[in-house]
């Protein structure tokens, strides 16, 4: 493992606020400026994928063809924890029969397929692996799952590590006969306690449940060891001073609620987001028109549709102002990103629109 970290940029926010688009734009702009950039996306929309010139982003990562050929490069991937997990097993070189047994283990398939709640946590392993796969990466941009679950990405590495490193794993492995017998006095004393806890758990969920779980843990032993090394790396990385946390919000009350929650939790963890982005903000010129100001402050209307638009526009601006005033408490800098024809109409999304959007963020944040 390398000792210095690439620069990490983590995009967090409520669902539908534009995290994926903004993080892709940001990564693209960085790459165009000459950096070697990695981009890990969650569920990128078809429109965004085709703008990037790829139809199916892979889990491993593909190079995106950039407009200006220079030293910079952008390698983009989609987070698919099931696939990552299978690869982590395969890279351990288990004998085929053991590997197959593991893939059939109900815990494994559950972990790989059924439980979305694990993906945020496992993403922390994935980013450390990225640095091993692509050691020359200079900047890594991560789009996280929507909402507060994404915080698991930052907070759960510790919880998972506490478990993987913990005694229960030892006990369970011992219970199914997978662990080396240690003949020390302490080990025997420990087992007396262990027996009690395991018997208790067997009472609640049955013995075979524990055996399945123990087998699962034993088979994944090597995978876990690597996972712990990677989690430790990510944990340091996430707390490193070069890591940038970016909160994304749009003009919606519920999005602000989530953003503030994220900001509050991050603050309690001693992490200060450097940037908050208000996406789809009100365009810049229109606001200053006197005729427009009159229109939105008008209260008497003869025509229903005129009243609707006036209501819509005035609440748009008020909500945005309100959001700005709240977010400024949670981030060093708040940038308003106006809606733009290239991104917010039915037109095909162009790489240049994305890149210039990323340029805005990078210029304003400087």
């Amino acid at each position: 493992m390398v000792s210095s970290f690439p620069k990490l940029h983590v995009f967090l926010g409520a669902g539908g606020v534009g995290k994926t688009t903004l993080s892709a734009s940001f990564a693209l702009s960085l790459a165009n400026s000459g950096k070697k950039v990695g981009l890990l996306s969650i569920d990128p929309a078809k429109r965004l994928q085709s703008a990037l010139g790829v139809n199916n982003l892979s889990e491993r990562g593909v190079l995106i063809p950039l407009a200006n050929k220079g030293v910079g490069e952008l390698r983009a991937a989609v987070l698919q924890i099931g696939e990552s997990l299978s690869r982590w097993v395969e890279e351990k070189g288990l004998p085929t029969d053991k590997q197959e047994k593991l893939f059939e283990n109900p815990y494994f398939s559950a972990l790989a397929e059924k439980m979305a709640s694990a993906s945020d946590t496992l993403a922390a392993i994935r980013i450390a692996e990225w640095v091993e796969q692509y050691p020359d990466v200079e900047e890594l941009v991560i789009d996280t799952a929507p909402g507060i679950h994404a915080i698991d990405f930052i907070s759960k590495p510790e919880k998972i590590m506490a478990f993987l490193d913990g005694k229960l794993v030892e006990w369970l492995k011992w219970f199914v006969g997978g662990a080396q017998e240690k003949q020390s006095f302490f080990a025997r004393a420990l087992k007396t306690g262990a027996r009690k806890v395991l018997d208790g758990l067997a009472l609640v969920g049955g013995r075979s449940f524990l055996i399945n779980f123990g087998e699962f843990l034993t088979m994944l032993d090597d995978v876990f060891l690597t996972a712990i090394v990677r989690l430790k790396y990510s944990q340091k990385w996430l707390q490193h001073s070069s890591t940038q946390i970016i909160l994304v919000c749009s003009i919606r009350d519920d999005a602000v609620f989530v953003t503030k929650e994220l900001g509050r939790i991050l603050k309690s963890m001693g992490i200060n987001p450097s940037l908050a982005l208000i996406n789809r903000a009100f365009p810049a010129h229109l606001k200053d028109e006197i005729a427009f100001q009159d229109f939105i402050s008008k209260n008497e209307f003869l025509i229903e549709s005129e009243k609707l638009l006036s209501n819509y526009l005035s609440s748009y601006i008020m909500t945005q102002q309100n959001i700005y005033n709240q977010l400024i408490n949670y981030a060093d800098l708040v940038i308003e990103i106006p809606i733009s024809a290239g991104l917010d109409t039915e037109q095909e999304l162009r790489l240049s629109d994305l890149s210039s959007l990323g340029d805005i963020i990078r210029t304003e944040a400087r």
Partner: protein
Amino acid sequence: MQFFNQISQKLLFVVGKGGVGRTTVATSLASYYAGQGESVLVVQWALKDSVSPIFSSPQCTHKETALPSGFKVMNYSAAEAIREYFVDHLKMRLLYSVIIENKHVQKLIHAAPGVQELFFLGRLFWLVELAQVERGYSYDRVIVDAPATGHAVSLFGIAPAIANFGITGPLAAECERVSKLLADSQKTGVIVVTLPEELPIEECYESIPRITKQLNRPPLAIFLNQSINSSFYANIDNIKNEDWFLNLEEKFKDNYSKQELKLILFALTKRNIFEKKLYDWSTIGENKDSPIPILPLPDIGLMHKVNTPFTVIESLAKYFATLT
């Protein structure tokens, strides 16, 4: 649409992508049913209770708490639910304090995927089926402000997945009865909330078949939040041609402003394009034979200059009442 007369299920999951208005829909449904004289509980699973603040009430906890609006609300805590399960329900206080509270077992509970989900479903089962026997009260309606769709879909699959682990004993019984409750179309229903926007609509195309597969039946309905269709707002699609609009544009000093106004108007009116797309989707392919009902909800925000979450909930609950 005689919509609400058809919803007889006691346990309603309100699911949807983040930010589409799940809480708004769950809360206005609760307010509507409470207004019909039902005893209603809203169950959240969130870091922070977002229902009580709407009614200017303090944050609720895992404990069911009455709101001034006539229904109750709670915010699930896994730790509390696990304690209730072992101590209050199974009466295994000793096992709970020796085994479950053991710090290594606690680490397992925090780290293992699925544990918190199983006890969430277990608590719902208790509220729907056991509260009467064990505590002497019951709800006519338990409305779940479910976690965002991805998590919600995996929630429906969690009990069979855990049952698959080779569990026996009380936990196996728990998985079984929870699965049975979810599978019972007379008792459990799913309402999908979406917005007339690109990503939420696309997500419906993907998540609705998954929900249908997981539960062996389609959701009860799609609630289309913030609709501006012509039944609510007649002339909205024609604004760009109206005299008052053209006059307004004429007064602008900057040419960019005109484009910007058009852009922002388009950002509003394109909701009708997406609403139509959703209708088209719901009547093609595998949906053709029995299209999932779509219930558009008016965008309350356009009616007034200033809106509060409370007025939005009130208006939606009133709107629901007109559909009975």
